[in-house]
């Protein structure tokens, strides 16, 4: 029967010991332990959040970079196309210019040649005329030294000058 009858003395000591234990542990163990645990959990979760945020930022940065890169590539292509066009244009213009210049030069040259030719011709003509006159003079001088020959010549000339 004593087994199930609580003893007063033990109740007294148990209450005393348990209350003391409760207060001592509360002050020196549970409050520091629980607050540290909470602090640690919070720091862990905030670190995880930070990591997640950093990861997101990294991803954003990466996509930004890619976008920039793509833009740069696009721009490069555009520039190249533009440059090609300009090049073609310049070449075409140069070609055209060269062509026109060349044709102008050729024309000038032709003109000059013509002019020179004409001048040369004129000079030759003059020379020829002078020479002819001189020759004719000499011939005439030689030929027309007697009468017979003179009349022969006139006749020949007249024959030649057919009045037809």
């Amino acid at each position, binding site marked *: 029967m*004593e*087994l*199930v*009858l*609580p*003893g*007063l*003395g*033990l*109740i*007294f*000591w*148990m*209450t005393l*010991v*348990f209350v*003391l*234990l*409760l207060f*001592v*542990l*509360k002050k*020196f*163990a*549970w*409050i*520091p*332990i*629980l607050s*540290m*645990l909470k602090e*640690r959990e919070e*720091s862990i979760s905030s670190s995880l959040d930070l990591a997640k945020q950093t990861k997101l930022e990294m991803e954003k940065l990466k996509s930004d970079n890619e976008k920039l890169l793509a833009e740069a590539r696009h721009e490069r292509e555009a520039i190249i196309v533009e440059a090609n066009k300009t090049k073609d244009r310049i070449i075409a213009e140069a070609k055209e210019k060269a062509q026109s210049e060349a044709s102008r030069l050729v024309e000038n040259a032709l003109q000059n040649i013509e002019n020179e030719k004409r001048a040369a011709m004129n000079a030759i003509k003059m020379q020829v005329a002078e020479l002819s006159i001189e020759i004719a003079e000499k011939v005439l001088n030689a030929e027309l030294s007697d009468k017979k020959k003179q009349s022969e010549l006139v006749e020949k000339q007249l024959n030649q000058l057919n009045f037809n």
Partner: protein
Amino acid sequence: MIIRKFWEGRASATASFLLLFFIFFSVSVKAEDHSVGVDSTHHEADAKKFNAGEMIFEHVLDAHDWHIADFNGHAISIPLPIILLDENNKLHIFLSSRFEHGHASYQGFMLSHEAPHKGKIIPVMEGTHEIDPSRPLPTDLSITKNALALMVSAFLIGLIFITIGRTYTKRQGVAPKGLQNMLEVIILFVRDDIAKPSIGEKKYHKYMPFLLTLFFFILINNLLGLVPLFPGGANVTGNIAVTLVLAVFTFVITSFSANKQYWAHIINTPGVPWWLKLPIPIMPVVEIMGVFTKPFVLMVRLFANILAGHIVILGFISMIFIFGSMNVFGGYGVSIVSVGFSLFLSLLEILVAFIQAYVFTLLSALYFGMAMEEHHTEEHSVESHH
């Protein structure tokens, strides 16, 4: 859900408890068969005569001295302080060795050997060993075996957790290690699996110191009770006074944290036909009884589980001596089986030590949670949203 699981667990625990009790009684009956005619003053009795029932009860009951062993028929025990408050409110403080194990009286008191005050301190008439019927029993506030064991374990618990608490403040922001790491798992278990789901995320903080102290107090005393050497081996959590105080703490905290709804629920239980409340208040009476049976059951469960464990282990050990007193070879033969069973039961008791600490703490937390439940306001707020 948790409650349902728990009740299932309890049913099986009760079943195993009954089974163990049955085994124990069959042992004790055998023991009594063989101890017929043993002198009641067994210290001087033939060492071969062995009373298992007496030995077991001597171990599981509280005592005024700490009996460690018997050597050559002499008890080796540690005397403990006796503190008595007599009928004139006079305090008597002396060591229990003054009683010479119940063979002497001191300051008009004596340790009784016989029913109805067996093991208690009784007032005696001067110069005799007879009880003085004119004087009432003194108020016994002695530091008994269990009280000393309580203090030792409280000191141990204090030492462990204050050290750990200091470790936490010293090693701030560093990963836990060693004992701190091991106990942190249990602390987190009490917080996350007992307090938070039972009481609720908002209010559990306030109850954590009590729940943690309760859990570790029960656990460490349960485990110390399984250590057969001094200062372990005392049947602290298998003593009804200890479990009574723990249950009273739970009851007081439950009652003080209860809100209006909890009391309204008890007086006017909703969802129950009116004729159960008027004119004969059957439901309120049942509910009020429930308020007291909850802690009562807590008290009995822990007490019975731990006591049964101690008794069964001791029963198996006793069998060696019972058979040994019949036949030396019988004793040796049975010892193999008994030691095996005792080992198995000791391992089982380690499990029980954890389970009982868990169950007591979980139920306390559930009662706190129930006392503060705000069922109706939640339902109304849900309805008002629709």
